[in-house]
Structure formats: structure tokens, C-alpha cells
């Protein structure tokens, strides 16, 4: 039975449980809801919870665990010499999976009947021909052991499905029945539902945290793999970045890191003052009419996709800068793609982040604080500088950091605006590139995934991650230290 059907059946059982349990609870209180411990619907929710939660949990665990178990068992049946012939067990098992799926599809398409597909004495040459005929992707001729293993896998899959369906539905029914049995007037259904809600929330939070941990771990393992084939001292010590997929490449991180930091610093130098001043104007000086028009307009900037900013950098800002600083002007700039181009455009992109967040934060400073300052004879700008901004500082630092991590992680504007040359230079009118842009270029293309040239992407990603983490920790420390609480 398809999983969707199982889910629908469980929900139906839950719904029936809801109605039945609610009715039973009402009956136990003589049909007067006031005599029940909890509102009648809580008994219903409880039944739904009892039916659905364990059933779905079982379903998920089964769906994850069953393939692993089956594959292990099937792999154990493959003769050792066959495994040796194939390059690795993984490749062989992939072939087995493909054949099993191919058989399934062939049966579904009507090219083969179920008997033939599961016939243990079936001839493998014939089988290969038939599978190819059915349009299934088979890389080589199917050998007898592989065919037998595939058939065994199909069988195991089918029985696992059947047992899963039975088990899940049984659990759902048992849960609903248990809830129904408990539906007495003094039973504290409300508290049970409360606990259920709490565990649901805990579950959601754990999934979020576990995903993060998973991402970090996968980064970490690949990074370790990279350092096994490429010396860390080179990666962190070399000042050259020149990957060559033929081997003998130099993969020093410094030119990339320098490009990232240089562009980010220019971007923040543009975005922070403009964004902050715009926020102060909007929240402290602007009339309501101006505010209601200007704020959404600023926020539109935040909705523009970065690729559009990239085009803006490439087609407008680059040529403009070139006209001023290129050979026709001051002669500092060779081409339109440069650190300055990308930095300026990225700064424009970040303005709404800084201004919108700072505006909200400044507005959250209580009016009483401003009144206190005005009442002592302070002017508006004195009040803003000495009372409002210090009170809003932690939030503003947060906004700036958010902008900083966006800047460090930005890729599109860099690719189009800053060029692709990894270079260590102080001249902001030269082309450079960043960590993120190089991660993309190392992973696109058909390099061997196990080569240092591809794996370096993970080491770069990890470095970026550590830097952003460090930035956040540092910001947290600053905020804690200088926090001026106003409530």
C-alpha cells in the first residue's frame, strides 16, 4: 500500500477516535460538559494524538530503517568472488538496486508478469533483454547472482511494506482504543494534550538543531578527508591559489579570504552609515506620511534578487567606475570588474537590511526615555546620540552582523562584479574573488569528487563557517558587555 494511503488511513482512524472518544467522555458525564475535567474536545484531541503520533513515528522509523536492514541482508547473500570481481560492494549493491527497481517498473509497465519477475530459475540473458526492452537503465548484462539478489530484495521490500502497513494501522487503532478507554469524566485529558503539544514542539526544535549538526558534521568529514590528501600547512600557509585539475595545484586560502574580507568591508562601509542614518531619519524625524511611503520603498531593495544586483554591477557600476578610475581617468583600474564594483553594489544591497532592522529597534526604545532626555533640555540629536542609540545598540550590532554575514556569504554579485582572479592586492580597483565564488567554481565542472581540487570546497566552506561563527560569538560578547537595558 502506498505511504500516502497509510497516512490517510491513520488520519481517518484518528478522526474516528476523536468523535468516538469525545462522545464517550460526554456520556460518562451525563452529557453535561461541566462535569468533565476537561473540555470535551480535549478528549477528542487526546484520541487523535494517541492514534496518530505513535503511528507516524513508527512509519518514519520503519521507512528509514527497513532499506538499511534489507540491504545488509541481501549484501550478505552475494558470493564473495562476485563481490571481488566488481570494484566495490557499494557499486555492486547499486546495480542490485537498479535491477530491483527495473523489475518493479517492468512489471508495472506490463512487459513482464509477476511470476517471471520473481522466478528464481529465470534465465539472466533473457531477463537483461526484457529489462532493456522495457526501457530500464541497466549498465551491463545482469549476472545470475545480481539477479537473484535483486529478486530477493524485491521480495523483502514487499513483505516489509506489508508488515509496515499492518503494524502502523494496528498501532493507530490501539492508540485510539486506549484513548477511548481512558475517556472518563475525571481523566485529565487537557493535561495529556498539553504534554503532547510540548513534545511536538520539542520535536520540531530537535529537528532544526539536528539538521544543523548534520550539516556541520558533513562539512567536517569532507574537510578532514581533504586535509588527508592535501597538507593543512599549505592550505593555511600558501599565498597562492592556482588549482589545476591535472594535479600539482596550489590551494592557499589567503587570496580568497582577503578578497572576501576586502569586499565585505567595502560593502559594510557603504551599508552601515547609510542604512543607520536612513533608519534614524525614518524613525525619529520623518512624519508619518513620509515614513509610510519611504519605508516600503527601502524594503523593495531587499526583495531584488542578487543576480539583478550582479547585472547592475556588471553593466552599470563597473563601466561608471571604469570611466572615472580607468585609463581614461585616473588610470588605476584595468577593467570594470573589481573589488570596488562588487563592494559598492553589495553595500547597496545591504542598506535595507541595516535600515529596516535598525528602524524597528530604534522604534522599540520607549518614548519615556526620549521624554526624560527632552525634559532635561536636550535637543533631538543629543537625545538620539546619547539615549536612543546606546539603548538600541545591541540590536543595531545584531543588524550589522546580519549584514556582515550576508556580505561574507554573497556569491552572485562577486561572480559578476569582482572578476574571478584570486589575488592578494591592496588596490580596490583590481579584480579579486571570494571564498564563496571559488566554492562554486571548484564544485561545478566534472572534476573527480575525491580530488583535492574538489574537496577543497568543503575546507573553504568550513573556514567560512568558523569565521561567521567567530563573528557571532564576538558580537554576542560585545552586546553583553555594553548592553544598556531599558526595561
Amino acid at each position: 500500500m502506498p505511504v500516502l494511503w497509510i497516512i490517510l488511513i491513520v488520519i481517518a482512524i484518528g478522526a474516528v477516535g476523536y468523535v468516538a472518544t469525545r462522545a464517550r467522555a460526554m456520556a460518562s458525564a451525563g452529557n453535561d460538559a461541566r462535569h468533565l475535567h476537561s473540555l470535551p474536545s480535549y478528549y477528542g484531541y487526546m484520541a487523535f494524538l494517541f492514534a496518530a503520533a505513535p503511528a507516524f513515528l513508527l512509519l518514519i522509523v520503519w521507512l528509514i530503517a527497513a532499506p538499511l536492514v534489507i540491504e545488509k541482508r541481501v549484501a550478505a547473500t552475494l558470493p564473495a568472488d562476485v563481490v571481488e570481481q566488481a570494484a566495490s560492494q557499494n557499486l555492486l549493491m547499486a546495480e542490485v538496486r537498479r535491477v530491483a527497481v527495473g523489475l518493479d517498473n517492468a512489471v508495472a509497465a506490463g512487459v513482464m508478469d509477476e511470476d517471471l519477475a520473481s522466478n528464481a530459475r529465470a534465465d539472466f540473458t533473457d531477463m537483461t533483454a526484457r529489462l532493456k526492452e522495457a526501457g530500464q537503465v541497466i549498465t551491463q548484462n545482469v549476472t545470475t547472482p545480481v539477479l537473484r539478489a535483486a529478486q530477493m530484495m524485491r521480495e523483502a521490500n514487499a513483505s516489509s511494506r506489508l508488515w509496515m502497513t499492518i503494524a502502523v494501522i494496528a498501532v493507530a487503532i490501539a492508540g485510539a482504543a486506549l484513548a477511548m478507554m481512558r475517556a472518563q469524566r475525571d481523566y485529565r485529558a487537557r493535561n495529556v494534550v498539553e504534554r503532547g503539544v510540548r513534545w511536538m514542539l520539542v520535536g520540531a526544535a530537535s529537528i532544526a538543531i539536528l539538521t544543523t549538526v548534520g550539516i556541520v558534521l558533513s562539512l567536517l568529514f569532507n574537510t578532514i578527508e581533504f586535509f588527508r590528501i592535501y597538507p593543512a600547512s599549505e592550505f593555511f600557509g600558501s599565498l597562492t591559489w592556482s588549482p589545476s585539475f591535472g594535479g600539482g595545484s596550489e590551494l592557499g586560502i589567503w587570496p580568497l579570504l582577503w578578497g572576501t574580507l576586502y569586499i565585505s568591508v567595502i560593502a559594510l562601509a557603504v551599508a552601515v552609515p547609510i542604512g543607520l542614518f536612513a533608519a534614524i531619519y525614518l524613525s525619529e524625524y520623518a512624519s508619518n506620511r513620509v515614513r509610510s511611503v519611504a519605508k516600503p520603498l527601502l524594503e523593495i531593495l531587499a526583495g531584488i534578487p542578487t543576480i539583478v544586483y550582479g547585472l547592475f554591477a556588471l553593466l552599470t557600476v563597473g563601466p561608471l567606475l571604469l570611466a572615472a578610475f580607468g585609463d581614461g581617468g585616473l588610470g588605476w583600474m584595468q577593467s570594470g570588474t573589481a573589488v570596488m564594483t562588487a563592494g559598492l553594489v553589495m553595500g547597496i544591497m545591504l542598506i535595507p537590511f541595516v535600515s529596516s532592522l535598525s528602524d524597528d529597534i530604534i522604534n522599540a526604545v520607549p518614548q519615556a526615555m526620549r521624554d526624560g532626555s527632552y525634559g532635561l533640555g536636550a535637543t533631538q540629536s543629543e537625545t538620539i546620540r546619547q539615549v536612543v542609540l546606546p539603548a538600541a545598540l545591541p540590536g543595531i550590532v545584531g543588524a550589522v552582523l546580519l549584514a556582515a554575514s550576508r556580505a561574507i556569504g554573497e556569491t552572485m554579485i562577486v561572480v559578476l562584479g569582482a572578476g574571478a582572479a584570486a589575488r592578494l592586492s591592496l588596490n580596490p580597483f583590481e579584480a579579486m574573488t571570494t571564498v564563496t565564488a571559488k566554492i562554486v567554481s571548484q564544485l561545478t565542472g566534472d572534476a573527480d569528487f575525491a580530488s583535492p581540487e574538489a574537496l577543497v570546497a568543503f575546507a573553504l566552506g568550513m573556514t567560512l563557517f568558523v569565521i561567521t561563527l567567530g563573528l557571532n560569538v564576538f558580537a554576542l560578547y560585545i552586546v553583553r558587555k555594553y548592553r544598556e537595558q531599558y526595561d
Partner: protein
Amino acid sequence: MNDMRPLERIVDTDNIKISAKGCQVYYGDTHAIKDVDVQIEDKTVTAFIGPSGCGKSTFLRCLNRMNDTIDICRIEGEILLDGENIYDKKVDPVQLRAKVGMVFQKPNPFPKSIYDNVAYGPRIHGLAKNKADLDVIVEKSLRRGAIWDEVKDRLDAPGTGLSGGQQQRLCIARAVATEPEVLLMDEPCSALDPIATGQVEELIDELRSQYSVVIVTHSMQQAARVSQKTAFFHLGNLVEFGETGQIFTKPEDPRTESYISGKIG
């Protein structure tokens, strides 16, 4: 005998610090203060009493133009400080507020250290020549605010970390640090214990030798103890204004009498 009266009048007008004439205040469509005339004398304590929501705070905030910060608030009539209309175009509200200080109904210390809270006004107005001078001002103000002994060992601690009553006294110290000519106090003692209340009342009495003080209070006893003049507000009207003793013993208006004896409120 007859010529005594004009003479008295002249002395009176000389002594007037603030005088409101036909003052009307609107919050949008709400008419919060209705045609109030009042004369606040120099070197006296004037108490505003009246039931909650009658417009005491609103009128008090008119006296140093704090209502300017409320968009929907509109004021008509004139309020003269030393004979000059404070709502005149050429008057700078910032300078006015330095002269007419205010303690708010809810304590609102800045999120700064206790020292910086008190030093805020003297710093922006350049009242201290150097750090030592500023230290003296801060200590003197905190003593006048009756809070010095409690905070003298932690002047660097944040002002917001104090208790509600301590915060209110800090705000009083902050207001007197700028040496205003008039001090407006909106229920300064509502969060204070009897001891601190007594100290603040002592401060008010002391301030009277140099300044004019206006205090809003819900405590009849307090009004009777500290003030020389009392104004009774009711539903935005100034019902009665006169010598404190007379208001509390022989009120002319029946509304005043019933409020004082606890029948409206």
C-alpha cells in the same frame, strides 16, 4: 485701607513665575483641558490635585512644552513664563525645558550608569568646568534626591538596575542637577515608602527657597504638608485655585469639598 489692594496686586504680579491664560488642550478630538487660568508664583510650592484622568499631567506637561512630542496634541491660549509666552515662535523649547525641569509620573532612568544619569543634564548644558566639578554636582544632586547613601558605592552600576522607588529618586536627582528655575513633579512619591517620601518632601521644601515647584499628587496629606497653593482639577476644568489651607478647610466649590472628603475620585 482702600489703596492697600492695588499695592498687593503689584507685589503679586511681580512674584508670578508662570501664568496660564485661557489654556485649552486637545488630544485629537478629546478636549482634555478646558479654558484653564492659573498663576504659579515664584518660590512657592503649588499642588495639583484631582481625580485620575482629569488632566493634571496634561496641564503640567504644557508648562514645559513636553506635549510637543505628542503628534495629536494641540494647545490653545497662552502660557507666560516670566511674562513671555512659551508657545511663541521665537521661544526655543529646548532652552525652555532646561529652565523648567520635570520629573515624570513613571520613573524613566536612562540605560546608563547612575553617575551618567545625573551628569547627563550638566554635561549637555556645560554646567561643570571639569570632572571634579561634575563629581560635586552629582553628589549634591543625589543627596538632594535622598538617594546618595544607597548608591554612593555603586555609581557605575546601571540606573535601570535600581528598585522602582530608587529609580524615581534618581530621576528627581537628575532633574535638580540641571538647576532648573521651575521644577514640575508628576506624582514623584507614588512609588516611595514613607521615609523616602519624607525626604523628598524635605527636598521640595528646600527647593522652595530658590525655585518654584509644581507637584501633582493623589495624597491630600502630601498636598497639605508641602504646598502653599493648591489647584483642584475636575474633568479638564480648573475648579478651584487658592491657598492650600483655605482649599482644605473652607473649599468654595462643592466638587472640591466632596473630592477632599473622599466622595468623588
